[in-house]
């Protein structure tokens, strides 16, 4: 992955170093796993927590994700993206699964209450703004239109399905799908993300 942005203060998980560590983890190297843990556990926990909010539940899911990384390291394929992308994709998927299963078991009132909640975008923005090294992501999120930004962040940081996003924003389903796509594309170009 081409990294146009260097995040100050963050651990620099040189994508290649992480890739090599994952290779060693796949062969059962527990020391390598410990070093990989140091690189990815902060991003994993932060991401999961931005979606689930509840600290105890977030830690539980983050642990599940990290154990899953150990279990499935041999399945990681560098052609599909950097090691960090792989781990965070897994973490996002698991956190979203948790949100959806909670939703499925909730009754209609709870579900309605969830949808009535104020969008989390401002809270997310505050957390992002709070850290210097996140400047670039924040700046790039600002280059999106309001609808693009809301569509992307409601799905990513709240774990909402596109139908729920459409309902919250009061826009047609087709529009939400397009905004998610063109929003991410603009973000990709602003962040200089390569494949």
């Amino acid at each position, binding site marked *: 992955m081409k990294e146009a942005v260097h995040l100050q203060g963050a651990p620099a998980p040189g994508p290649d170093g992480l890739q090599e560590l994952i290779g060693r983890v796949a062969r059962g190297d527990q020391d390598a796993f410990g070093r990989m843990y140091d690189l990815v556990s902060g991003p994993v926990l932060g991401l999961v927590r931005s979606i689930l909010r509840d600290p105890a539940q977030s830690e539980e899911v983050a642990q599940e994700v990290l154990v899953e990384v*150990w279990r499935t390291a041999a399945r990681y394929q560098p052609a599909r993206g950097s090691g960090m992308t792989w781990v965070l994709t897994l973490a996002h998927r698991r956190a979203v699964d948790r949100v959806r299963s909670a939703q499925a078991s909730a009754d209609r009132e709870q579900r309605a209450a969830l949808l009535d909640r104020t969008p989390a975008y401002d809270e997310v923005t505050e957390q992002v703004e709070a850290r210097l090294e996140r400047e670039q992501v924040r700046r790039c999120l600002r280059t999106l239109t309001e609808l693009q930004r809301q569509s992307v962040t409601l799905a990513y940081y709240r774990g909402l399905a596109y139908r729920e996003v459409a309902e919250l924003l009061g826009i047609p389903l087709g529009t939400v799908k397009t905004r998610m796509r063109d*929003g991410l594309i603009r973000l990709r170009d602003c962040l200089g993300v390569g494949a």
Partner: protein
Amino acid sequence: MSTAELHTLTGAYALHALPDDERLSFERHLVDCLSCAQEVTELAATAARLGRAMTENPPVRMKTEVLRRITTERQEGPLTVRQGRVRGRYGRAATRFALAACLAAAATFGGIAAWQHQVAEDAQQQAQTAQRQTEALAAVLAAPDARTTTGRVGDGASATVVVSRSRDRAAFVASGMPTPPPGKTYQLWFNDAGTMRSAGLLDPAATTGAVLLDGPVGKASGMGITVEPSGGSPAPTSDPVALMEFPA
């Protein structure tokens, strides 16, 4: 849903915002749409940047707990063909054909399942590789000149080696081998007049099954099995758990 509509789902897919039915139909579409797969790869990397921006410091106890948990967690193998399973005892020929059938089935079900963003090209490549390995193994097992030798490995485990001189390949069939210690793996060797030549590793998780030995039989007179550190060794570092002569 039309193809044009499917094209617009790359963003929602990368954000995990699709319900299961639409996700599955989009994944089928990805197999035929390389430009979509490429876009998904890039958008997933972009989404991951949103995740990384949320980094926080995990409590120390979390590392302790995760490191403790992995010591009892079995690791899955890479995406290759699943090994065929043998149950019970069969005659030699029956075993060979039963194995060939198992492996054909394994090629259909195993191998290709992958993480979210399946890229069509990779999937096809993997399927072809798995298919080739399976065919090669089935070919050895079903070869008209296939000869077998059976021996014992430790307590209660048996191992059979199948050699086809016409195909210059050999297969190793294990039954009930003990799981190697953590961080260790079984390595197979061709015995070239006392010099051991690596013939590949056994999936530590599969202690019963058939595997094609890597490389040609050549002048090898037999094979050996050793326990090696995960990832294997260039030459054996321990005494063999079994040595077997190839059938004449």
